[in-house]
């Protein structure tokens, strides 16, 4: 394997990073927003009834935080990436704490494909590769169904091919 050249992008010539779908931004934003609506409503009603300035301040703070969170979601979704190499799957994610996982196909125990209602509405699915180690995380959210099933089939095929289990 060639040595990494850049600190930020290891092995640029051998690794072909693929992004996850941008629609994941909407999924994450909506699920975050639906939670925030209740907070806003609660604070807003309380402010309207009592008229205390502290509640207004809290509302403004929450709004600012929510806006910041949405920006973070934008960037976090762009930070997700995965790459299929000959022998292993690479997954990177995280904004504050950046994580890169290298999971050999041979170590695969099973593959999970999940899609929640919101994900389905946007035509997305999540593929997760499980190994015998609980610590290894290889979860790829925001894949179009075609890509998800292609990845699942490829992973299972490669896993059977190179099965080692433990």
């Amino acid at each position, binding site marked *: 394997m060639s*040595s990494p050249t850049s600190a930020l992008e290891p092995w640029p010539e051998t690794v072909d990073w693929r992004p996850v779908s941008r629609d994941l931004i909407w999924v994450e934003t909506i699920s975050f927003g639906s939670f925030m609506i209740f907070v806003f409503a609660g604070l807003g009603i309380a402010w309207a009834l009592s008229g205390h300035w502290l509640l207004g301040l809290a509302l403004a703070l929450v709004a600012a935080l929510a806006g910041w969170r949405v920006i973070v979601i934008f960037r976090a979704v762009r930070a997700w990436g995965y790459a299929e190499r000959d022998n292993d799957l690479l997954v990177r994610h995280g904004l504050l704490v950046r994580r890169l996982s*290298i999971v*050999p196909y*041979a170590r695969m125990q099973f593959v999970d494909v999940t899609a929640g209602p919101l994900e389905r509405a946007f035509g997305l699915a999540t593929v997760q590769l499980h*190994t015998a180690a609980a*610590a290894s995380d290889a979860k790829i959210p925001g894949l179009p169904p075609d890509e998800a099933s292609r990845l699942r089939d490829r992973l299972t095929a490669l896993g059977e091919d190179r099965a080692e289990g433990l």
Partner: protein
Amino acid sequence: MTTSLATGPRRRLHPLTPLLKGARALVVIIAALSWQTLGRVGLGWFAAMVVAALIGQVILSVISWYVTGYQVVGRELRIHEGLVFRRTRAIPLERLQSVEVVRPLLAQLTGLAELRLEVVGGGKTEAPLAFLTVDEARALRERLLVLAGKAGAAVPAQAAAEGEAVAPVAHPERPIHAVANRDLLISQLLTPQTLFLPFGVAFVAVQFAAEATWSFIGIASTLTAMAGVLLQPVRRILADWNFRLASQEGSLRLRGGLLETRSQTVPLDRLQAVGATWPLLWRRRRWLRLRPHVAGIAAPSSGDDSGGGRLLPVGDPETARLVLAEALPGVALDTIPFTPPSRRARWLHPLSWRILGAALTDQVVAHREGLLTRQVLVVPYARIQSVRVVRGPLQRRLGLATVYADTAGGPSAAARDRDVSEAWELAATLAERSRAARSVPAPH
């Protein structure tokens, strides 16, 4: 052992099982009824209640014994249980990680034993077979291990066809090491719990003397607290008494125990990692302990090193070298070339950055950490499940990264706070070497 390898007869557990389980339940029943009840209803009624509950328990145990059976079918161990809800568990033996024969005190008196199987994916011990006669338990253990070993070699059909010809051959056992009970006692005296106990007692006594209020609750709670503090060292002494380690045909056999004797068999190729710990108080004697990490055996909660098995409860470096040479051939703790992390890691670990270290040898990846209680973890390349590179916000500012090599069910070897470019290189090397190690069969 007279049956063919393909399908064994369905067998029951030992008929004394319900009585032993009933005796075990006695303690629980008394605890459940509590001293308060005793005070309220008087001794006669209390005894009657205990007896009634006990009889009920024994009847239930008898029914459960009657419907429980085990059977070896091909490469599976099947356990049937349940009267109303029938349950059959099939335990694939290729996933067997270790087998343990446990003999609690009562079982020792009656010549019985419990067989515990550890299987990957089970958070707790799968399938405890309690109770069998000792001979039965040993024979079943040998048989399961032979089957489990065979399952790895891809000739199950042939094995089944050959039947008895390949059935258990008694492999001679080679003793490796026995821990002197004196060392074990001293080592457990040299724990913070035991060392600080006199001070604690003195402190409490002085307080009582000053206050001169010897209330019952005060004394009782002091005693309870003392017992709680001493519980861990005492438990270790009980568990590791007469500890002996032997090797037998590609597996390690760990024995020990005072009240409850255990004999655990760990196939060498199921050993995921080995941890070595040098507690601060043992340092003058240069003692250390070794711990095997096997998938399926619940790992003790972090920091607490009391649970799980032991390769060596206490020993000097020479003994440790001897034991480690058996567990991971070709690895010696004192020759692992640890390199410290980048100097910039001093900002994150001002005191311990010199201790932090990681090393790659030709067979294993290892890490070292802990300023006071030094710990080394050794993971063979062939057992690495995945490699991770993690960079937290501070680490990114300092240009550092931590590389983890994960094992199944065990801890991850972590090269902490390496220089980023070194970390990428490390990750690439680990991925490469673990692949290479997987593709060649293990040396033993």
